[in-house]
């Protein structure tokens, strides 16, 4: 057991740092540092730079474009990206649909879809949840009925993040309504330009249209867009859910947020002549969450280490989801606490590109409540934290 990086690992770390400093676009960095909303183009542009470097998809098999890194290298890469504020590629393509395609798709599908995902030529979104399914995902009702060489899709998907930008959507659809609920589900790729698809925005608590409802009205999807076998979609989706859990702990991001928070607190008067950081009650809380993130980091490293010696990422990884999201949410609370009165304004234009009016509050503090509100979703989506606790009690504790 030892915590040191090898000389090669240190060299690699330096390489990542240098790359980020040289290649992460200044204007995007400015946005990230100041809490300004990122647009589609920012994500695409940055992913194309990563693509040029060959660093889009560390977890993919090398044959499809993966990096072939060791677990430690992957950890270093994710950590340096996160600490620098560089975004990960949007997950829906790289982390979510791609593993299903390269694991269960046919050669034709791999060739057709994977390169465009890697190169950020196509924007994907996810069609899993439905208005009435929620945590009980397998109860989904969107149907796909075979009609010659097509499936005819009808139904509504919801919580479709950034669906307004998407070229393609991957969906779970019901192809056999007589089977048990998990057994009649198929995995279908759908071109968003197909007639009959309508996207309507859902405004979240920060008043941003981050997610959408996607309605399917007799949408005709070629059968070659089916992944694997009909009615086996649930099996594939479960694998995808495991991949989705990678970096669900969000340690690099939390560390960056904590670092910024510490700076902000050091520069925030406590109202009595000192700084908030020197206020013991605040400092104690900050310490508590810093330590929580540290414990989480090592819990994640231990999981990765277990995976690297061939163990599957077990249900234990549910704790990464629970603890990671709760840590994020607690950090959000501390931002509001630093912001105090300045946590209350709702001035979205101040956090849009090109704003040059009077600013309220230091840095992104005037957006701290909105961030807090928005991030309440984290303990709900991706398998709610209650579902994760069910998984732990059943699959780990055997209750």
């Amino acid at each position, binding site marked *: 057991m030892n915590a040191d990086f090898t000389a090669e690992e240190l060299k690699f770390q330096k390489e990542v740092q240098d790359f980020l400093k040289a290649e992460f676009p200044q204007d995007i960095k400015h946005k990230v540092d100041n809490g300004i909303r990122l647009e589609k183009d920012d994500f695409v542009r940055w992913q194309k730079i990563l693509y040029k470097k060959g660093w889009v998809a560390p977890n993919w098999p090398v044959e499809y474009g993966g990096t072939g890194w060791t677990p430690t290298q992957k950890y270093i890469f994710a950590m340096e990206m996160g600490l620098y504020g560089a975004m990960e590629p949007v997950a829906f393509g790289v982390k979510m649909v791609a593993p299903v395609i390269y694991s269960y798709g046919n050669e034709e599908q791999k060739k057709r879809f994977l390169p465009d995902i890697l190169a950020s030529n196509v924007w994907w979104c996810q069609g899993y949840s439905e208005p009435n399914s929620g945590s009980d995902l397998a109860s989904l009702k969107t149907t796909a009925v075979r009609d010659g060489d097509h499936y005819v899709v009808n139904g509504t998907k919801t919580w479709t993040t950034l669906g307004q930008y998407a070229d393609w959507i991957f969906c779970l659809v019901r192809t056999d309504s007589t089977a048990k609920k998990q057994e009649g589900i198929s995995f279908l790729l759908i071109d968003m330009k197909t007639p009959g698809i309508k996207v309507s925005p859902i405004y979240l*608590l920060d008043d941003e249209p981050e997610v959408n409802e996607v309605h399917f009205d007799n949408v005709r999807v070629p059968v070659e867009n089916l992944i694997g076998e009909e009615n086996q979609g649930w099996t594939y989706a479960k694998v995808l859910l495991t991949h989705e859990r990678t970096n669900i702990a969000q340690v690099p991001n939390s560390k960056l947020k904590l670092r910024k928070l510490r700076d902000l607190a050091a520069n*925030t*008067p406590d109202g009595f002549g000192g700084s908030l950081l020197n206020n013991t009650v605040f400092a104690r809380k900050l310490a508590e969450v810093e330590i929580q993130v540290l414990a989480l980091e090592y819990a994640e490293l231990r999981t990765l280490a277990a995976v690297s010696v061939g163990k599957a990422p077990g249900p234990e990884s549910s704790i990464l989801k629970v603890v990671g999201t709760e840590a994020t949410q607690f950090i959000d609370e501390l931002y509001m606490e630093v912001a105090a009165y300045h946590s209350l304004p709702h001035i979205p234009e101040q956090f849009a590109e090109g704003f040059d009016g009077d600013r309220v509050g230091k840095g992104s503090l005037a957006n701290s409540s909105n961030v807090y509100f928005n991030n*309440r979703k984290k303990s709900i989506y991706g398998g709610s*934290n209650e579902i994760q606790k069910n998984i732990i009690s059943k699959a780990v504790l055997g209750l």
Partner: protein
Amino acid sequence: MDFSYSDEQQMLQDSVQKFVYSQYDFDTRRKIIKTDTGFSAEYWSLFAELGWLTVPFKEEDGGFGGSAVDLMVVMEEFGKGMVVEPFLATAVLGGGLISELGSAAQKEAMLSAVMEGSLQLATAYAEPDSRYNLASVGTSAKKDGASYVINGNKVLVLNGPAANKLLVVARTSGEKFDRDGISVFVVDASASGISKREYTAVDGHRAAEVQFNDVKVSADSLLGAEGKALTALERVIDRAALAVSAEAVGAMDCLLKKTVEYTKTRKQFGVAIGTFQALQHRMSEMFIECQLARSIVIMAAMKLDTTASDAEKAKAVAAAKARVGRAMRKVGQESVQLHGGIACTDELDVGHYFKRVTTIENLFGNTDYQLVRYASL
């Protein structure tokens, strides 16, 4: 010791409750928030007509009586409707300062206008550096002949956009943290040298950051004795803290009720999620929080209506605000969590109650501030 409402209080509660229930549903509120002013002038007139704007004021000032329990009754019902009309800013904060500090002439000139609904007020006390310490006043008011000249920046001026008059807390002598030397001036919102950065807060209420650049006011705009305003300001802010705590009790009751109802109807895995014991226990804990919050707000309101010392009253309010703060965080977060995704949308009222209680926690001293203050009193 008596925990029942008087007949007048019962009538007051019935009256506000009826209004909220029948005229202030969630869609109506949503429309009001989206108007230019962010509140309904029509309802404001109705509040005046029904006498609610007199509630915070003493009988000798022409008010309903000014007891904290009366105020609690009104605010709790407002909390259930998430009422955005500037009752707090105008009648409790601004009106409260005039009532505490004003001369007979000043009261005559302004309080009746407030109670009639024709005068809107805003109080500019918080500063970028002050956090929750009311004695931390950097804004200056310098004597210049028969006038004062005010310079400084104020933040979170509630009702700043609509107010006709601003009550400005400024330092007429002393150093930044001195308790002595703090004065309050009544300034016309249109006075030269005032610039406002207006905004909507996350809870839909309107507020502004206000800059004072060489704003010249006459000596008779001074409220009370020069440099002696701090204790009155503290009393008024504490009364406002009690008021929003009572509002929170109303809001939390709605959150709990809505969450319980939702879990009874929302089905997952073939059954209503309200049948899951883990969720039942969490709702029981929400209920406990609601009950304790209500209990301590009643305690503080009753205490304010006794002849206890200022320190005892301040301690009671600090206790209430701190305890309600803890309850709000728990009840607010759990309501959203138990509703799931739907409560994360702008569409459902639950998220808006959550925003309002989150705002309340940050107003007039957050939970940790009040805990430490309680310990020091």
